[in-house]
């Protein structure tokens, strides 16, 4: 074996780490040893994999995908998955001061001693944290500076659908569902590792690239026009495909689900059983990336879900089961599932929650079933305030639907309502802004009338961030100035004690828009910003826009080029190598329909829209009538 793997941080370091823990905030983030944590005897045979989440423990421990992979890898006898999170600033300082490399929670092993590190990519603004984890783990940042003695750095998750801004740093991206491909990767890695003395990292990558759903950025070269647009992609390796088709697990009932997830010792954001009732959504809201990249819709059966719920409860003792999906009330058996769960758990001190509800009376009825006694708030996302804009974004919810739903919610005893809106949408006019204000005022009036003094209304207004693989991928994001003008106008018009308003940070929204649709030239900017101290960018108190501006300037790149520029129909997008299943042609036709203010029906209630997934739908037995 070439690499000498020390088993863990040595004794001296362990004494120091214990002392450090006594001096930082929330030391429970770094101790490990939670209930259901997996520890293995580390003889040299194990493939050591670190699952890395580029944010704090409390955030990372709330993501289902992270738990799924931990479970799948640790079921293998030949591998051990451990966890690592971004340390908070105080702990980071302490690591540097004491000369301790960033380590995993399970074995306190320094990151550089792992075989594979897998990053979870959930939001663009965690990119600097990825670099920081590598840096604190003493691993070279750039893929080309790492050889076979360094860990293989892989990444997956929704943000991997535009991997380009990270192309310089990540060896390999996994596109789509990870449940099957993670095993295939480990198999190939293990095979190579056994004979790695006579083999190179490139050989390993060449073996891995034959797997469907694998994107290896170093196997491609990107060429640009003088104006900065992409002219063409070129591949450097024979076996690298020109289309990387996302992975899709076909049957969720037969897909492994973590029924014994780790129960954190400290409180985390979502501290509960997350029961994934289905994956995918076909509503087709035109701004929504999740609605495209998680297609097609695959449901778990009620029987399977009840069994998963019971096992998860026995193994964790959690007091809440959350039915997770992109739109829980769209689950075909939601009424019977909810009723069965409530009947089964209400006398055992376990609550059921539905985090994503459609705007209709049925959803309120469901929520009422789960919250018979304690009525916390209800959240809805009307997104827009006019019929016209409803048609542009294809969210088929009318004003009347919202008013009727809210009315019903008040009748059933709710007092707190939260509404989400979006501004900066394509073809938005003053009238659309007035529409949002009108809607808010009407709901407030209804609340005051029906609930009275105890009524409270939470309004969250966010700027549109055009995302890759959506019909809005071609549109220009509004400038900060325009957005702030609209926000100020809304604030001016809405002054009420019962309403609390919150807006997205427009500078952060700008940067997010840049990286969402960015190309691989942004790698330099990212690294520069990191060296200038940027990290935890999505945390308002840490976000340093000036450093970002300076980093863009240094490399002569312009944020506006990425954020505020409308793309042409045939422009080559940085993510064009990634095939999410839905065709670019379909997305364009959706964009044209948006401009024509025309709706597209949900294919589950209507005919097939031919989005590009027809063959997959057929294969997994989803029957749609073709017109």
């Amino acid at each position, binding site marked *: 074996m070439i690499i000498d793997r020390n088993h863990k941080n040595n004794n001296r370091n362990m004494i120091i780490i214990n002392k450090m823990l006594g001096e930082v905030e929330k*030391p*429970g983030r770094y101790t490990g040893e939670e209930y259901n944590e997996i520890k293995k005897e580390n003889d040299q045979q194990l493939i050591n994999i670190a699952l890395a989440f580029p944010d704090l423990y409390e955030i990372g421990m709330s993501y289902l995908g992270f738990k799924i992979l931990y479970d799948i890898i640790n079921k293998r006898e030949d591998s051990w998955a451990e966890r690592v999170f971004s340390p908070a600033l105080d702990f980071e300082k302490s690591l540097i001061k004491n000369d301790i490399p960033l380590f995993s929670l399970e074995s306190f092993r320094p990151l550089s001693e792992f075989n594979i590190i897998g990053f979870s990519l959930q939001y663009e603004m965690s990119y600097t944290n990825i670099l920081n984890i590598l840096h604190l783990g003493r691993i070279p940042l750039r893929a080309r500076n790492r050889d076979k003695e360094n860990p293989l750095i892989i990444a997956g998750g929704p943000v991997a659908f535009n991997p380009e801004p990270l192309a310089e740093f990540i060896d390999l991206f996994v596109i789509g569902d990870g449940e099957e491909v993670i095993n295939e990767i480990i198999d190939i890695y293990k095979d190579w590792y056994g004979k790695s003395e006579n083999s190179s990292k490139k050989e390993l990558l060449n073996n891995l690239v034959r797997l469907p759903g694998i994107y290896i950025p170093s196997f491609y070269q990107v060429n640009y026009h003088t104006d900065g647009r992409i002219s063409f992609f070129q591949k450097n390796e024979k076996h690298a495909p020109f289309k990387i088709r996302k992975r899709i697990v076909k049957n969720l009932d037969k897909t492994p689900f973590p029924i014994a997830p780790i*129960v954190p*010792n400290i*409180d985390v954001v979502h501290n509960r059983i997350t029961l994934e009732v289905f994956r995918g959504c076909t509503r087709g809201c035109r701004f929504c990336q999740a609605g495209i990249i998680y297609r097609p819709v695959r449901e778990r059966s009620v029987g399977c879900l009840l069994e998963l719920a019971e096992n998860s409860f026995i193994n964790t003792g959690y007091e809440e089961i959350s039915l997770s999906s992109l739109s829980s009330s769209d689950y075909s058996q939601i009424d019977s599932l909810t009723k069965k769960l409530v009947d089964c758990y209400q006398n055992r001190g376990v609550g059921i929650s539905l985090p994503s509800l459609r705007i209709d009376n049925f959803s309120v009825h469901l929520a009422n079933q789960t919250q018979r006694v304690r009525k916390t708030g209800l959240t809805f996302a009307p997104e827009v305030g006019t019929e016209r804009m409803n048609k542009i974004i294809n969210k088929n919810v009318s004003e009347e639907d919202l008013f009727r739903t809210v009315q019903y919610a008040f009748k059933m005893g709710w007092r707190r309502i939260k509404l989400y809106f979006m501004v900066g949408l394509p073809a938005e006019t003053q009238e659309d802004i007035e529409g949002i204000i009108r809607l808010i005022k009407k709901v407030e009036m209804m609340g005051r009338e029906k609930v009275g003094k105890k009524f409270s209304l939470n309004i969250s207004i966010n700027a549109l961030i055009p995302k890759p693989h959506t019909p809005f991928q071609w549109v220009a994001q509004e400038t900060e100035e325009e957005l702030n003008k609209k926000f100020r106008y809304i604030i001016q018009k809405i002054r009420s004690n019962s309403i609390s308003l919150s807006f997205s940070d427009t500078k952060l929204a700008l940067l997010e828009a840049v990286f969402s649709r960015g190309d691989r030239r942004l790698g330099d900017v990212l690294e520069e910003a990191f060296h200038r101290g940027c990290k935890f960018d999505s945390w308002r108190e840490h976000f340093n826009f000036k450093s970002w501006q300076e980093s863009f300037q240094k490399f002569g790149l312009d944020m506006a080029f990425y954020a505020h520029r409308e793309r042409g129909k045939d422009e080559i997008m940085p993510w064009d190598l990634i095939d999410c299943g839905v065709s670019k042609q379909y997305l364009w036709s959706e964009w044209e329909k948006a401009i024509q203010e025309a709706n597209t029906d949900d294919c589950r209630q209507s005919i097939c829209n031919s989005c590009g997934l027809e063959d997959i739908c057929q294969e997994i037995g989803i029957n749609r009538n073709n017109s």
Partner: protein
Amino acid sequence: MSYLYRMKYQKNGPLRFISHLDLNQLFRRVLLRADIPVELTEGYNPRIKVSFGPALPLGIEGWQEITEIVLKEPLAEEELKGKINKVAPSGFKILEVEEVSNKRIPLSKLLRQASYLFYLIPVDAIDANKMVYYHNKIEQYVKCLLDRKDIKIKKESKKGLKEVDLRPYISKINIFSKNNDRIIICLILNIEAGVCINPNPIIQMLADVVKDYFLIGKIIREKFISESLI
């Protein structure tokens, strides 16, 4: 009918770094996993009926902490202990279970004193003479400290800085140093009107006497002292 059980437990290892609130949450989940027939409170948000002794400050190990739970059905003491320990996370362990009658004194009135132990570890190796010297130095300091009428410190509270007098809380301070590798100090604090003060300021004062030569090692809450539990 409900049945009250008083339990002694350990909170150490990784759990010495979790707050009292987190411990509460953790214990609830342990009880649900163990399928213990715990009584739930009435009202909007049913909670399990459990009460804890005084909170343990972050970083301090608890060797014999105290909690009480109310069950809907009686359970043999050993069975209750076994069931809980089987599904408890690392760092939490029930040591003793005792069923108590319902007509009883609440925990806050029952516990009179808390006994703490902490280690002072020499930064560099020292010989026996030096050890005696430092030992005596601390002893003298303790003597002066206990002779004082008041020991006022400033404490940060929600309403800004507050002045607290530590003197009435200090019952005894004993110093041991049989080996040359550490000084062990035993600190017995009074629990006054249910208030069990944080020992850290006192520990810090004592450690400061030998500042540059010793570091504070482990801090332990060894046990509570009460009339019936002694």
